[in-house]
């Protein structure tokens, strides 16, 4: 932690238990302000649990959690692993929920949500209810809702898992080029190593049962400001991906 | 103890007074009242009568206490009970002068000559403190029987007493009209005993009000009692007209049942002929109440009864 860069999120030797079951043990990491951190690791290793801790939705059995954004009462955008769309709201209304939750007048919120939809490939589905959407469309609506509030800290739990490659690239670009430039900080859980390497400054590799940090891998590409699709073409990209693979397999 | 004498009756522009009267039940026993209504005696007196039925004696009296009615028609014991608890109930007139109850049976056809014959039988009656229950237990006790051992008493909601008897579930119903003649006319049941005969004068139903109201509106009270007195006399003078009125008042009952019922009531002197509350009738009622523990029943006659209206009514009406 340097003196000039402030720390947005800091976990220190955190252990989480559910009853007798230890989900996460002795995890420490820091997210400097303005940086992107990805968390990768086997299914069930405690990634979502960590994200919950960061969002303040749960307390560790031991260790400490610090979240500067939360402490200052600024906005957090948390996209859960489940899409959590409200069944009784149309796509537009669901996307507007974020702004309405922050007190924006309903009309304005919905107008703004309507403007956002095309970015997320949902133009034409404004009036569809969640039960009428495909799995990927639901995920995109949830992502749009999360992004709409322009949060200071973004917590994303596998935001693109149900999307095809093209759509995923488009949204990654949106995330990186839009959100990152606005100075936001993000923690991203993903199973896609390419994605982790393409969009983040640091990749946190976890091992499971109980979840621990197996390795911390710094990646230079996100800082370049290139679109993720371009980053994937850079020469060193494959090197980093393979390095992380090895860390996972070891 | 609480407030004034209820809502004052409204006087409308044309000089008629609107009076709310709450009757405990809507029943042939109150034939005097219906005759007075149909013959227009209330209107003659300048009274617009709003009649509403309550689900029982205490509800009728509660309407008076709460002020939504000025007069109640029902078991006059309620006025007595209210007095004993510091209220100001007052009885102004008598409308049913006999215990209007008959023993009705399907199985048994020989009339009872003595309540001793009740032993071993199953009776159906309304629950205490309904008067049919009271007169039954009283007869049993008077006959030297134990009401808990020597007879079996089943209580059912008022008006349904003949059901178990006709269905063969019990021996004798202590019933009143029109149920008595329904069972007789329609189902061939037998009347075995008349408490009207056995007990004699008995203030079964009284017109009640709060004393505070009556003192504030003696004119209204007088008009009501007068109309009732006219009705009472008309019933006995023209029984056929009474029957006709009863048939229109109870259109859903078979006409022959209504006729028979009115006839039986008149034969047994059940509807009051005079609205004056008799000392004898009142003390019989009070004795019964005391025996059964319903009330201490010790308020002096002239404190709880105000016969002045009824006396004035019978004097003037007779003079007509």
């Amino acid at each position, binding site marked *: 932690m340097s003196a000039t860069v402030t720390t947005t999120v800091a976990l220190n030797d955190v252990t989480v238990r559910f009853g007798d079951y230890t989900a996460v043990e002795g995890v420490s990491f820091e997210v400097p302000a303005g940086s992107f951190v990805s968390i990768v690791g086997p299914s069930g290793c405690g990634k979502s649990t960590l994200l919950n801790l960061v969002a303040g939705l749960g307390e560790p059995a031991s260790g400490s959690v610090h979240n500067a954004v939360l402490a200052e009462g600024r906005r957090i955008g948390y996209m859960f692993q489940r899409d959590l769309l409200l*069944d009784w709201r149309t796509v537009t209304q669901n996307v507007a929920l974020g702004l309405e939750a922050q007190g924006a007048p309903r009309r304005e919120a919905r107008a703004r949500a309507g403007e956002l939809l095309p970015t997320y490939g949902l133009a034409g589905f404004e009036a569809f209810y969640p039960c009428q959407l495909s799995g990927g469309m639901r995920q995109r609506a949830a992502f749009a809702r999360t992004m709409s509030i322009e949060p200071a800290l973004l917590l994303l739990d596998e935001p693109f898992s149900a999307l095809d490659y093209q759509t995923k690239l488009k949204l990654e670009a949106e995330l990186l080029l839009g959100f990152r430039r606005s100075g936001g900080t993000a923690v991203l859980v993903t199973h896609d190593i390419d994605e982790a390497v393409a969009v983040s400054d640091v990749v946190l590799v976890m091992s499971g049962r109980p979840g621990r940090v197996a390795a911390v891998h710094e990646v230079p590409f996100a800082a370049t400001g290139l679109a993720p699709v371009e980053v994937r073409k850079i020469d060193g990209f494959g090197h980093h991906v393979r390095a992380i693979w090895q860390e996972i397999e070891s | 103890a609480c407030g004034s004498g209820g809502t004052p009756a409204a006087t409308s522009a044309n000089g008629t007074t609107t009076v709310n009267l709450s009757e405990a039940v809507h029943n042939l026993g109150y034939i005097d009242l219906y005759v007075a209504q149909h013959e227009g005696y209330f209107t003659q007196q300048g009274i617009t009568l709003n009649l509403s039925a309550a689900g029982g004696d205490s*509800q009728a009296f509660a309407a008076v206490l709460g002020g*939504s009615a000025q007069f109640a028609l029902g078991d006059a014991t309620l006025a007595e009970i209210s007095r004993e608890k510091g209220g100001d109930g007052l009885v102004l007139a008598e409308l049913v002068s006999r215990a209007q109850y008959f023993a009705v049976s399907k199985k048994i056809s020989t009339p009872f000559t003595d309540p001793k014959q009740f032993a071993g039988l199953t009776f159906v009656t309304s629950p205490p403190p309904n008067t049919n229950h009271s007169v039954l237990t009283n007869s049993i006790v008077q006959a030297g029987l134990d009401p808990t051992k020597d007879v079996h008493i089943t209580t059912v909601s008022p008006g349904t007493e003949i059901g178990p008897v006709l269905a063969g579930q019990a021996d004798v119903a202590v019933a009143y009209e029109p149920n008595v003649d329904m069972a007789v006319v329609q189902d061939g049941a037998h009347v075995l005993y008349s408490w009207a005969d056995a007990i004699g004068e008995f203030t079964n139903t009284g017109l009640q009000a709060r004393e505070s109201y009556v003192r504030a509106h003696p004119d209204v009270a007088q008009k009501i009692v007068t109309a009732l007195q006219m009705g009472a006399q008309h019933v006995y003078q023209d029984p056929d007209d009474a029957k006709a009125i009863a048939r229109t008042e109870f259109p859903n009952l078979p006409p022959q049942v209504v006729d028979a019922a009115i006839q039986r009531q008149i034969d047994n002197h059940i509807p009051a002929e005079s609205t004056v509350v008799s000392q004898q009738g009142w003390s019989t009622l009070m004795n019964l109440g005391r025996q059964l523990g319903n009330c201490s029943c010790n308020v002096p006659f002239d404190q709880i009864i105000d016969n002045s209206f009824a006396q004035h009514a019978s004097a003037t009406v007779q003079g007509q």
Partner: protein
Amino acid sequence: MTADQELSRAAAPELPAAPRPAGRQDAAGRRHRSLWVAIVLDVVLLAIGLASWQFAVDAGSVSPLLYGSPELIWQTVVRGLGSGAMLHDAATTAVEALCGFVIGNVIGAAVGVGLWCSRLVEQMLRPAIALLGATPIAALAPIVIVWAGTGVSSKVVMSAASVVVTALVLAFDGARGTDPLQIRMLRSMGAPTRRVFRLLVLPSSLTNICGGLRLTAGLALIGAIIGEFISSDSGLGHAILIAGSLYDVPTVLANLIVVGLLSLVLLAAVGRLERVILRWRFLAMAGR
């Protein structure tokens, strides 16, 4: 219709919803047809039932005095309708029950959903609600008359009182059943309690509140009628009270049939309202 065919019902909507595979219109048609079949069967069964009842009465094996008879009931209905008395009674009772229904449900739903906001108040009110839910209003007759009088308002009060606990408990269950993850999501987006309530808890309780409307339609009518039992000068309960005390079974039954018809009307109206309020739900049932 076999049980297996019937199964499609659960996946199928109550109402034909807009977007669904065109092929499914068959299913909607089938449902519609089954409704007609049901009505016809109902009528046939009813007719058979009434005919055998009447036959038993005519043959003397069932006492018309104790149980009434279709003929007597019919005569009562004809007489009641002819004199206009029955319609007047029905109108009186309908107005009382409707007012009680609306008031009871509004209060019940408001308080029930509102209790979500404070666990303390909820725990404090819990015994009171249980007590109210187990109070037979008829038992309070004398007090009710003194408090609420004998006019229409007392029946409205009693109808509302019969409704309010059920409406309240259901609304509260609905509010409490709000997805906790969705609550956390809204909180994390910066919504204060008030807004979580308005944006999430309230709408997600609507399903239960509508369920409450359906459950309380009958209770509202019963409450109004019990109110009329306590004191009245008109209304179906008044007619039933008088007929009951005269052992006039046909009249009791005839009036009860009218009560039943009123409840069917009320339920149909509630069904319509429900389809408006829960439009998305019917879509969801229609969708995959």
